[in-house]
């Protein structure tokens, strides 16, 4: 499953959309104060994209999210969640949801990039929300040291200091960030999927987000210098390994030392 494959093309589409905005000068600019801060690009799609997106929405999403995306008992309203949220949820395969459980998990993606962009374009027309960030915004060319500090303060308590993920309450968990595309990391920060809090641009500026992505990509590309990671889960795994294998080995040796030869 290549995320690179999923990433390139939606970004190209975003640039096309942004160009479209510059040309037409139109916009769906009814902004609330709350979401104004999280509006990297106000991408505007073509009417055709939106109508195709609406068809896809009605066929695949409306049974839970409602015909007008107003939400139901089973699923939240999608009004105002923005294109970034749709891109994140559908392009990581979390949506459409497969089974109810503590949380929705990453799955094989069900739609093509084109379809995802159409749905994102449709949902973006329902109310203003975070748009899909541009390629430059998610490029890992920021300050990884600063990103590391911001990550440790804002993210590490759930996602672990090197992004290995961790447990939450009642079966929920913060997923590992290794192998997650920079685009999806950015979108998760601005949209706050599921139980993740939102980190809007007042909280973490676009530069902060870029630095965090740079840090995560740095960690991903640099091997650990300190022996085997044991999934980087920290003292629990290391302790278990020590108690079961190392202590077991020591006990076995001790028994052998004390036993009489046959």
């Amino acid at each position: 499953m290549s995320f690179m494959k999923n990433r390139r093309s939606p970004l190209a589409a975003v640039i096309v959309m942004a160009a479209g905005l510059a040309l037409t000068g139109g916009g769906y600019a009814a902004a609330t104060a709350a979401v104004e801060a999280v509006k990297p690009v106000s991408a505007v799609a073509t009417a055709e994209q939106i109508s195709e997106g609406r068809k896809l929405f009605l066929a695949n999403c409306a049974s839970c999210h409602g015909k007008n995306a107003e939400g139901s008992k089973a699923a939240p309203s999608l009004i105002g969640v923005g294109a970034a949220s749709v891109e994140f949820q559908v392009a990581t395969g979390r949506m459409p949801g497969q089974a109810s459980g503590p949380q929705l998990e990453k799955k094989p993606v069900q739609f093509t990039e084109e379809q995802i962009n159409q749905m994102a374009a449709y949902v973006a027309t329902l109310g203003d929300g975070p748009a899909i960030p541009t390629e430059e915004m998610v490029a890992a060319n920021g300050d990884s040291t600063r990103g590391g500090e911001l990550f440790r303060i804002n993210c590490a308590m759930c996602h672990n200091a090197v992004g290995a993920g961790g447990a939450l309450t009642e079966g929920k968990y913060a997923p590992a960030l290794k192998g997650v595309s920079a685009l999806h990391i950015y979108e998760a920060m601005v949209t706050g999927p599921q139980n993740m809090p939102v980190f809007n641009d007042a909280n973490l500026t676009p530069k902060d987000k870029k630095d965090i992505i740079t840090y995560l990509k740095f960690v991903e590309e640099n091997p650990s210098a300190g022996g085997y990671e044991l999934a980087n889960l920290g003292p629990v795994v290391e302790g278990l390994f020590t108690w079961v294998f190392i202590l077991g080995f020591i006990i076995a040796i001790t028994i052998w030392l004390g036993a009489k030869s046959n």
Partner: protein
Amino acid sequence: MSDKKLAKSGSTNAEYEYEGGLAVIAPDAVKDPGLEPHRTRMTDKSVKHEKAAARQVAAMFFASVVGSAFAIYAYFAFPLTEDLGTVRNNTLLLGLGITLGLFGIGIGAVHWAKTLMPDAEVSEERHQTRGTDEVRARAVEIIKLADSESGFSRRKLIRRSLYSALALFPLPAIMIFGDLGPNPGNTLRHTMWKKGTRLATDPTGTPIKASDVTIGSVFHVIPEGLADLEHHKLEEKAKAAVLLVRLDPADLKESDERKSWSYDGIVAYSKICTHVGCPVALYEQQTHHLLCPCHQSTFDVTDACKVIFGPASRPLPQLPIAVDAEGYLIAQSDFNEPVGPSFWER
């Protein structure tokens, strides 16, 4: 058997035999199992096994030779370079080689002793704790001689000055206990927060406007001015760290006295767990649970951060907040109770 033994030992040490009086002396509950019968080893019975054991010992020593040689090889074959990742293979393989080098010698020696060296069982009886009269008399003699030669009893000046020296030498150690202080005084009860202190983001120290805090957001907050402190910056941060969350005001259950402590659904709570002081910051946006990563204490942000799971015994202290004329979030006062884990006198 034990009875017999008792009687036997009594007879040889008649001097120390004592009457039981009215006490009921129970025989030992666990019988002395004595020595196991000697079992002849296979290596003693057959030459074939003996030769095999000798080969095994030699193989273990040879494994040690291989290990040591491998350690030297690994040191050169996996050199340390600028790339930090090379440390891993270098240390791991070097370590494995040295381990095999030492471990081979160790298990080879033990296996040698167990299979090939004589295995006759030998029992050594413990000697009596009390020395013989002769030895005791000699000991007294030696002490008296030492006393007379050193003049310890005779030379009062030396003896008393030595006593003084011995009495005083532990005192500096006692004095150093003073460095465990000074007493914390009321520093555990107060933090940097006071009326009008702006809430700022950690680590940049940028003040936060109420309008910046959208629903579902989490801000990691320090008091404005923390970065400018010259002393005790970390101590102050450790006490004053705050988590700022905005929820739908309809979700908040607030008591009448705390109604004025939040602002339009924005609440601020101490980030320091009331159990043992870990930073509680795993906030779940949908359930509004705040989870401590150390021992899984869970706090309900909608309900005054009361404990709903885990070992913490009291809710997280709430920081009363308000908004100033420019729209920035400010503290109304310090926390109304000490932050962090319980301590004496609390």
